[in-house]
């Protein structure tokens, strides 16, 4: 899934049996189709279940205030998979921890987080806790450390149920077994008595998924759920995640820095940079016609099959700005090949672009729209440097 967009591949070259799984990646005209590859049983509805409005998160530190999230707004529709991409420190994890109410005490959170119309930031701690795990669940990045080493898997799953409902332990364990079956762990009955150290990484992440969905949540926040797993297991886990989502009718916020994962999974994608959303839209248009140079740069930095594998990687030059002393204007302007004076003076708002439902925060999105392949800006520059 790390194939770049618009790379023509001759279908004749591909052995149809060896690449059976990849066949659906190709369009009828033989081009790689980078859009959503996994099909869901029930498509998302238009009704928004979670709405984040102008969320800002700041951390006071000795060196100054860290502006980790600076005004994030998005809506999550029922049964939808919303991908949030961005590099480390772009605020993607912090903004979802804010939704979970799991930020450290010193964090200053502003804005509104509406779950079915109720502002979670204004709720009592008790009410917030009752939503957590029951309506909004979270899957953590590292299944190695997110499971308690001293309790059996069954106990931990039952504990997740008992945190919200009073019921006999036996009933809770029966639910736990059902969930292990659902996530595809063989011999679920026996596995309930296993301890986390007896599970492999993939199985632990499956167990984490089971724990997240055991209370039939409406929203699942998956914070880089496959980063700690190896590639072959990643695909299985993602597929399972989507399957489970359909089984419990949940929406997913999928946080990752892997564009391939987003491409295969997400209905819509939100790109974040320096604590701000810089592009938001349906996955296919965003990946095929990015309207923000940062997104184009990210897409351009995916290793290419072109040039026989000998071509260099094309990273975006420079580093993200410090979140303590942000430059004025667009935070991406120091690294942007299209930057002009207006970029360095004014931070562009997230505004609708040429296609409906596709938003970008860029003064010059029309320049990207004017070329066939927007990654070309990054390509030519890095190749002239090299």
């Amino acid at each position, binding site marked *: 899934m790390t194939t770049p967009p618009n790379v023509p591949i001759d279908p004749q070259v591909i052995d149809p049996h060896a690449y059976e799984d990849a066949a659906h990646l190709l369009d009828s005209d033989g081009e790689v189709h980078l859009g959503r590859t996994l099909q869901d049983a029930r498509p998302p509805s238009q009704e928004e279940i979670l709405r984040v409005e102008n969320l800002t998160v700041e951390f006071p530190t000795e060196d100054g205030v860290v502006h980790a999230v600076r005004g994030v707004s998005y809506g999550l529709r029922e049964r939808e998979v919303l991908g949030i991409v961005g590099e480390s420190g772009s605020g993607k994890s912090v903004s979802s921890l804010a939704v*979970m109410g*799991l930020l450290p*005490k010193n964090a200053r959170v502003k804005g509104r987080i509406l779950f079915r119309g109720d502002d979670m930031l204004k709720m009592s701690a008790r009410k917030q*806790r*009752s*939503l*957590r*795990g*029951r309506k909004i*669940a*979270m899957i*953590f990045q*590292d299944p190695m*450390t*997110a*499971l*308690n*080493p*001293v*309790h059996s898997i069954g106990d931990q799953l039952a*504990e*997740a149920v008992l*945190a*919200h409902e009073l019921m006999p332990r036996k009933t809770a364990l029966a639910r736990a077994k059902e969930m292990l079956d659902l996530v595809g762990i*063989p*011999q679920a009955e026996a596995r309930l008595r296993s*301890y986390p150290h*007896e599970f492999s990484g993939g199985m632990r992440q499956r167990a*984490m998924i089971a*724990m997240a969905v055991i209370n039939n949540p409406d929203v699942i926040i998956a914070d880089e759920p496959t980063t700690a797993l190896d590639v072959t297991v990643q695909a299985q886990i993602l597929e399972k995640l989507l399957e489970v989502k359909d089984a419990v009718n949940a929406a997913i916020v999928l946080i990752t820095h892997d564009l391939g994962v987003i491409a295969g999974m997400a209905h819509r994608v939100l790109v974040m940079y320096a604590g701000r959303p810089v592009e938001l839209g349906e996955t296919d248009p965003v990946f095929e016609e990015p309207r923000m140079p940062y997104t184009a740069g990210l897409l351009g930095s995916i290793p290419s099959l072109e040039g026989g594998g000998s071509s260099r990687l094309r990273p975006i030059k420079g580093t993200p700005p410090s979140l303590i002393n942000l430059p004025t204007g667009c935070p991406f302007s120091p690294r942007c090949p299209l930057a002009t004076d207006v970029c360095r003076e004014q931070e562009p708002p997230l505004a609708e672009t040429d296609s409906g439902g596709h938003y970008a925060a860029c003064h010059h999105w029309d320049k990207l729209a004017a070329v066939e392949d927007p990654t070309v800006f990054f390509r030519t520059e890095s190749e002239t440097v090299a």
Partner: protein
Amino acid sequence: MTLSAQASGPDTGAAQGMTIVARTQGQMIRRRFFRHRAALAGMILFGFVVVLSFSSIGFMGIPGWWDKSYLTTGALVNQGKPTLSVVPEFLGGSGIRLGEHPFGQDDIGVDYFAKTMRGTQQSIIVAFLVAIVATTVGTLVGAVSGYYRGKTEAVLMRFTDVMITIPVLVIAAVVGRRFGASGVVVLGIFIGLVIWPSMARLLRGEFLSLREKEFVEAARALGTSARRIIFRHILPNTVGVIIVSATLTVANAVLLESALSFLGLGVQAPDTSLGQLINEYRTAMVTRPWLFWWPGIFIIAIALSINFIGDGLRDAFDPRQTRVRA
């Protein structure tokens, strides 16, 4: 195909003739403990002392197999010298036998074996009460301050600091003087209420590090209440530390009780404890040394054996030691 066969679970391994023994954490700990020779010896010795002291003179009205009481006097036999003999006849000794008064008699003719056994009982009871009370209080204070942090922690830990600055013996002396006459149970509880701070500090440290673990965050993400997180998620992870520290507290408490009784502030006559016996007969060291040595030997045996047990437990619970010594 081979890949999928290997991945299909532990059954496949067994089918291929491999023996896979998965051990739970508890099994590993038990195994490591029983391979620790000193700890095993300590446990046998301590078990022997406990059984001997409680079965010989009986406990709480239940009679034991020894026919003499620690309260009744009898005629002096052999000037009160111990009649216990352990050297067999063929080595020129007088044979293995207990005799009338194996540990001798004190100056008014009370059987000293019965008295020592009574003292041992009392010391053990006090020590265990102290350990239980100190561990409970210390764990609670440490857990709450380590988990909640902030003001709760500040208040609790400053209080703990104050308790630590006051020498234990001084507080225990005041407590012992006031409550020593009320019996060993009250004495044990009060000493326990004095020596919990070190346990609290230890547990706070454990909680400070464990609360940052991802599984705690995961528990919070599940909407688990703080109380459940403390007791169901974090506390079981500290069991090793708690058990080891509680064991060592038992050993310390035996010595502390002995010290208090030696100073005349612990268990009061006519009841007795090991420390009190030593205090009473310290001047008899030269003339009738057995009156000093018997309780002394038992104090050493208890303190040493429990320390060995604690040592073995610490090794057994050490997470860095993942493999079992062959």
